């Protein structure tokens, strides 16, 4: 076996990633973290691409607190897409994010299907933005308030409207809270998505141990962290097996071994979410650890590893 250093670089559509590890939307605010932490995050940026928190057309103040609660190996959150609105994002944040040494994947959501198109039109004009991710887990105000991502047709419509408005690399982020995630994935791809992010948080709830009332101000929330890793791995495996477009895998990624497994399950890139809260510099160690694991196991390249779990034994 020729001993070459393993190749970590990987292409995600037109995006050239130095390694396969990016952040999950809503879990790492580089502008805040760079202000607070001693680390120079703009130089030593740990992620191969940066996904800011989801923005919507109008600013949203988010849900009533408490918004967080830890569960066994998991975290429940009900942030409620608190954000400053896409216009402030473009005017205030994007100019600063341009300095990052990594491509930017803007994340957008909306209460109406057409919001996805309008957000994409605004972002299409921004050259700092390399790709757009549609977060379809936002409650839909046009219907019963359920996320439009729970319905293949509505997801397809949002993706199609977005596709009309942007030529940027278009990612649709799937919700796991559906009977058939592959059907939603197919609908998104059919409507023009270039890539799928798999998965958003899993519906859950917690009661306060003393009052026995729902802990979260919003009653229910989204579960993330290692607890959902098996749910995420399955979704990544099935979606990437059934569809021909790249998948960004996420859900519970905490160690380099987890990164290896999501790649093997079929992901082209892997996003770190909740683990950023455990240790905001964790991601910096993941790429290094991944390289070491690859050397140890004689895996030559990330590209060669993708989907290995799907090959016959």
């Amino acid at each position: 076996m020729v001993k070459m250093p393993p190749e970590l670089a990987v292409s995600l559509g037109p995006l050239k990633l130095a390694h396969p590890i990016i952040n999950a939307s809503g879990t790492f605010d580089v502008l805040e973290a760079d202000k607070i932490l001693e680390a120079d995050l703009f130089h030593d940026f740990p992620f191969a691409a940066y996904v800011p928190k989801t923005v919507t057309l109008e600013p949203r103040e988010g849900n009533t607190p408490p918004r967080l609660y830890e569960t066994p190996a998991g975290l429940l959150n009900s942030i409620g897409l608190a954000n400053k609105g896409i216009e402030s994002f473009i005017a205030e944040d994007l100019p600063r994010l341009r300095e990052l040494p990594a491509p930017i994947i803007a994340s957008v959501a909306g209460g109406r299907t057409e919001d996805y198109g309008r957000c994409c039109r605004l972002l299409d004009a921004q050259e700092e933005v390399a790709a757009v991710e549609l977060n379809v887990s936002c409650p839909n105000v046009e219907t019963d308030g359920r996320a439009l991502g729970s319905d293949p047709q509505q997801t397809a419509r949002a993706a199609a409207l977005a596709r009309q408005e942007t030529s940027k690399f278009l990612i649709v982020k799937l919700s796991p809270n559906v009977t058939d995630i592959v059907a939603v994935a197919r609908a998104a791809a059919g409507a023009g998505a270039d890539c799928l992010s798999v998965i958003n948080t899993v519906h859950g709830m917690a009661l306060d141990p003393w009052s026995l009332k729902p802990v979260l101000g919003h009653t229910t929330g989204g579960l993330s962290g290692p607890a959902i890793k098996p749910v995420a791995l399955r979704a990544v495996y099935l979606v990437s097996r059934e569809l021909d477009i790249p998948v960004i895998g996420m859900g519970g990624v905490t160690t380099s071994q987890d990164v290896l497994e999501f790649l093997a399950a079929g992901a082209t890139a892997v996003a770190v979410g909740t683990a950023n809260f455990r240790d905001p510099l964790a991601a910096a160690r993941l790429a290094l650890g991944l390289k070491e694991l690859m050397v140890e196991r004689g895996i030559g390249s990330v590209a060669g590893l993708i989907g290995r779990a799907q090959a016959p034994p």
Partner: protein
Amino acid sequence: MDAENFIPASLYVCPVVASRPVGAYRQVAFVAPEIAALAHPGQFIMVRRAGPALDPLLPRPMCISDADSDLVKILVEPVGKGSAKLAASQVGDRLSVMGPLGTGFDLEGEGPAVLVGGGIGVSPLVLTAGTLAERGRAVRCILGFRARQQAVAAELFRDFDVDVLTEDGSMGRTGLVNEPLPGCLAIEPGQPAPEVFACGPDGMLWEVARISRECGVRAQVSVATHMACGIGSCQGCVIRTKGSYRKACTSGPVFEAGELEW
């Protein structure tokens, strides 16, 4: 402290060098010279046992209770698995610590300082009292507790003028901190007005805010919300302030009492 003027926080793995019960609470001291040097009264850390264990998953916010050249001390009330695990720290255990974080109390005033603590909320007042005294300000402490087991923590304020109250009368006076508070807030003509520094449960902070407002004195209160990241990333720790939600981890945990909306 100016919320926009952050002291750079960093991540450390810190050995525990002392751990002792203080009534129902536990005081844990660990080596963290950088944090001890930078810590401002009222700031906090995010802390968990070092290592790969996933249970608990996330660090917990803990006030910096005291700090000297090398050591940082926290005072922990075990209320759930995260705090219980921290409270069980033994000498030699290693903690993963990020800090110092958040704004602390603004100590720049001149008037007599009235420190009001409720339960585990007395924790940050230890360093606050010491630092205020060093700056030559008069310090008076009003500390309320459920019962004697908690009230033992008043021993941490040995050097100060302390009023202890318990709800069940098992130690100190019977009652709540809002009873003696107004008596300490009289404004002496020609003298700088007293200032309140408070930390405790929401109900107590609400009363402290009301009384301070009625007496016309400034009150700074330190709030406790559920936190995941401690550095402004997750938007989980927000507290309602006039007009908007603000993040307790970066705009707080210390707020002007008047800013909060209850």
